[in-house]
């Protein structure tokens, strides 16, 4: 029974990773850059929800919506100010180092505004727990809400990318920026939209993450961010179902590793997965192989 409960916890954590990984994978697919600051947008999103609920007394659902709006604007602003000028830079390191700088900036800004001590995040998800098998297996409301949210996001995003005009524009830009531009697609607006969606999802991920692990510091987002990037790579960068499956597998591996091997080396196991994937199949489970042309 404990195995099943670990498994469900793993899927729940994995769903959060998956939502974060979607942001990474979409941005990487379209802008060909690793948005290091994505993890910290999660943290900002969680702080917005926390302060809205505890200080302003806003309804949790509205607080999450406000947080999504804030993160969307933040993501677009980051893209506009820090990444866009470097889009055609001669060195690929330039935008990567800038992204690290943005991540560093957000962390330290949060440190000054909110302080270094861990804030406890209130339990805002009021779904009842389900207890199965005579109470031996209890699934909390947070877990249910997380998994359901994740499925809705996956379905919504798949629909958006495949069926709507903007979604298809996104696919076109990620395939070939130049050709997309010739087809009359506004490339700048499309990239901006991608950052907006990714960051909006980050706000939801921040809320879910802190609901499951209710301790919030300026560094809360960094580790899950890196792990979610691992998940995105695992599933094949640029692929939406890949990010989902990569995220869930990674969450399960982490929780099982924590439960059966050692809680101290769980992070090491997750990163070992990343390294093995990159060495054995660098394109990930669903990734496309791109040949380098001279």
């Amino acid at each position, binding site marked *: 029974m404990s195995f099943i409960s670990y498994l469900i916890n793993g899927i729940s954590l994995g769903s959060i990773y998956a939502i974060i990984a979607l942001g990474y994978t979409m941005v*990487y697919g379209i802008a060909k*850059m*690793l948005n290091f600051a994505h993890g910290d947008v999660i943290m900002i999103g969680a702080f917005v929800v926390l302060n809205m609920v505890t200080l302003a007394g806003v309804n949790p659902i509205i607080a999450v919506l406000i947080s999504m709006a804030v993160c969307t604007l933040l993501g677009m602003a980051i893209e506009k100010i*820090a990444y866009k*000028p*470097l889009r*055609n*830079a*001669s*060195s*690929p*390191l*330039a*935008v*990567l*180092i*800038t992204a*690290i*700088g*943005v991540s*560093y*900036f957000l*962390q*330290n*800004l949060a*440190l*000054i505004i909110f302080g270094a001590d861990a804030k406890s995040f209130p339990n805002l998800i009021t779904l009842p727990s389900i207890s199965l098998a005579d109470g031996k297996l209890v699934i909390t409301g947070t877990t249910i809400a997380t998994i359901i949210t994740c499925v809705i996001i996956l379905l919504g995003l798949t629909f958006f990318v495949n069926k709507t005009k903007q979604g298809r524009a996104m696919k076109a830009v990620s395939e070939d920026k130049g050709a997309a531009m010739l087809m009359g697609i506004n490339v700048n607006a499309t990239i901006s939209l991608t950052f907006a969606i990714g960051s909006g999802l980050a706000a939801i991920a921040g809320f879910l993450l802190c609901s499951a692990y209710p301790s919030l510091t300026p560094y809360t987002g*960094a580790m899950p961010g*890196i792990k979610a*990037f*691992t998940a995105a*790579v695992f599933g094949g960068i640029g692929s939406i179902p890949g990010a989902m499956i990569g995220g869930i597998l990674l969450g399960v591996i982490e929780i099982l590793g924590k439960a059966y091997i*050692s809680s*101290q*080396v769980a*992070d*090491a196991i997750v*990163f*070992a997965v*990343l*390294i093995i994937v*990159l*060495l054995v199949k*660098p394109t990930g489970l669903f990734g496309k192989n791109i040949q*380098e042309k*001279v």
Partner: protein
Amino acid sequence: MKKKISNNMITYGMILLFYVIMQVMISTGSISSLLQGLLVPLCMYAIAAVSLNLVVGFSGELSLGQAGFMCVGAYASAFFTKLTEETLPEGPRFLIAILIGAVVAAIFGFLIGIPVLRLRGDYLAIVTLAFGEIIKNLVSVFHVGVDKSGIHFSVKDAASLNLDEEGRVLIDGPLGITGTPKNANFTIGIILLFLTVFIVLNLVNSRSGRAITAIRDNRIAAESIGLNVTKYKLMAFVISTALAGVAGVLYSHNLSTLNVKFFNYNTSILILVFVVLGGIGNVKGSIIAAILLTALPELLRELQDYRMLIYAILLIGMMLFNWAPSAIAFRERVKDKFKSNKKEAA
């Protein structure tokens, strides 16, 4: 060629000058104890920054695991020092400890480099970051002790080492290594910094160094003229990790408690900040940035809270100013204006 040599001489001269000034200030007592305590860390950060610059500046790869290699060097050397504390005299012991720190870090760099250097760009950055975290994670579960019957080892806790009464715990998991003798001092730090700069500058100006920069500038072209890409990339990476190990040795022999908390992701980033602000590929700049950015905030205590925020803004601003095509075009325009003004004046 001549310009290169004189430029190198300026770098060496600068380190020497810094040493002399500090020594004079120490002997006349015109230096605060706070700054005096910072001298060894200054050398450590400078060495780490120069070593990272070798990878970022000359090899063109972003490594975010520098703190992990410092951690390896720090632990390996401190472990050796503790083990031989009663059997070896201080001088040779510290010398061997430095070598051990460098060699063990280099071995780790080699083992990690072989798979990792097949990757490029973002992937390489994230994997080095992952390795740094793995090293930190694994080191914090080790418990090693020594007694008459030899070395004991456990991943659980200190009690399960089963030491006899005279046994000593050398590495105590998350608590790390305590009571390492303070063998490092400013003079040794400066000598090590000098050696680091010497190694890096000589490498960069050698045949191998030119191969390394050629691979950075165009990997495919370099490969097509027959350069062994993996070999040269690995060479730069391993030397860089060995030097990072030396920086770790300075750290562990300067403080009496050593634990993995220091060697986290933020330390790697801080070293990267030094490299970027000092100028990517500029050894002199790395040293100046490391020294200034470590010493200034400690001296200006009021700025302490905002220090990291200012670094972050500087980092972003610097990258945009140096690399954005529009900023480069703007700089060109300003330069042209100056030139034409000069002509008119003449």
